[in-house]
């Protein structure tokens, strides 16, 4: 699975409250989650997420179990998220809804062109190559299907 997108660089410990604030959790409106993504971090960011690959610092998605955080990013058009480490519930949620994540320590230049080879576990940013921790076969299988629900539908 090969992906590409435009880099958006974020810092460390971006928690799920910052990805989608608690005040938006009483709706089921995915479009609203997408339009309010990262609102408390930078209200202008949501508009730039389409086609973006987020390159963040460690512990991205720490905190709450709200799957709305992963959904908001996918819905907004985020192609993938790269970070040295992820909050583990966010990690599972993202894979489960088909949002690719890669554990990789790499430098980030805002707006740079990023290429990812999920199967190989490779990231390339402006000619610099980085190796990511490989996703397990099961996680890849879920991602390729587009999510756990989709995978289950295929199997049925």
């Amino acid at each position, binding site marked *: 699975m090969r992906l590409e997108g435009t880099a958006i660089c974020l810092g460390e410990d971006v928690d799920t409250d910052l990805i989608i604030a608690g005040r938006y959790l009483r709706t089921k409106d995915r479009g609203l989650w997408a339009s309010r993504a990262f609102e408390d971090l930078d209200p202008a960011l949501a508009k730039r997420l389409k086609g973006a690959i987020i390159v963040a610092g460690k512990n991205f998605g720490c905190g709450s179990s709200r799957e709305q955080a992963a959904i908001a990013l996918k819905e907004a058009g985020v192609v993938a998220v790269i970070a040295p480490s992820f909050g583990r519930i966010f990690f599972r949620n993202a894979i489960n809804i088909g949002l690719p994540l890669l554990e990789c320590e790499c430098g980030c230049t805002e707006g740079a062109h990023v290429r990812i080879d999920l199967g190989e576990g490779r990231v390339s940013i402006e000619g610099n190559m980085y190796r990511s921790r490989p996703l397990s076969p*099961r996680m890849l299988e879920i991602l390729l299907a587009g999510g756990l629900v989709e995978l289950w539908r295929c199997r049925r």
Partner: protein
Amino acid sequence: MAATIVEKIFSRKCGRDIRAGEVVMAPVDRAMIHDITGPLAIEKMREMGGDRVFDPAGVIMLFDHQIPADSIQAAEIHQRMRLFAGEQGIGNLDLREGICHQVMMERGYAAPGEIVVGADSHTCMYGAAGAFATGIGSTDMGFVLRFGALYFRVPESIRCEVEGRFPRRVGPKDLILYITGAVGADGATYQALEFSGNTFSEMEMAGRMTCCNMAIEMGAKAGIVPPDETTWAYIRERRTMEPFDLQSDTDAEYTEFRSFCVDELEPQVALPHNVDRVVSVEETAGVRVDQVFIGSCTNGRYEDLSEAADVLGSSEFSKRVRVIVIPASREEYLKALRAGIIERFIEAGALVEAPCCGPCMGGAFGLLAPKEVSLSTSNRNFRGRQGSTEASIYLCSAATAAASAIYGEITDPREV
């Protein structure tokens, strides 16, 4: 082959020897859903072709994040969930009982050796009962509701050995804040934190819950205190279950050993906006506070309220401070009420609210304006968590919260 308690729980459940790192499909004893993440989980269960939950008795539903309904949208969520519970025959505790995690513990819905999942990150609290308990997202919960099982990567464990006796006015919350500062907000990611040592064997259940509750703040998948006489006594009061031996082997493999001594531990405070920016109370003393929140699944139990009341004595809370007290559950509320503690809080100027998540959720009430400062006994001080993103949240114990509420600034509870 030697095993940790977590490896033993998975081995028992799966009927074969399992070690950390393995990915297993394990049966789940109980699943908890609430009014924020529940609706999405129900939707996912249906998308996976599920009409009925795996076992209505294995599903616990309750509302605690936005109660009584604070908006029409919340009311609609509650309405839909009530309908679902009725259709499925799920015993819905609705908004009567309190915060999900406290209710799960006090009803005996988590016990030694069990695997319990909840659609909330602080589900790890039930490790205090010797269960493997972890928070999951809505798709995973949809899968659990449908099949009664889930894929787990069995986590490696970090062993935290804690020795010593707490000094006066210092307790489990100070310890877990200190540990969080030492381990870091991602120091236990994907792993389990196993708590042991004489401090834990002498600690009551309330304190164990406080510590396991915050395991997620270090990224951990679970926190666990191996069951002992204290655990079994707690379980015996709640359900019929024969005690059995469930301890880590002495030569089990851990990724890390950490030891702590609490003999000289000082009251701890986590600084905005990260849970692992922890300092001793002296270093923040004098910071003016606008709101003090005593409550949450971390520190809303009788023991916490009682400690706060003890610090309060016959004083009054500062008129500059909005003091919000929220017992963690109906049961804890009644205990505090009967002990005269609630009356004392109200006399001293606090607002006492019905059991719920309150300001910790940042969506319902008790929100902060820009530049305001909150001192809170809850578990997260993320930017914007309790209202404005320009507000600051400090975390502390109930004793430190009470002392600070008297003076209107962060105050060492040992000096009150």
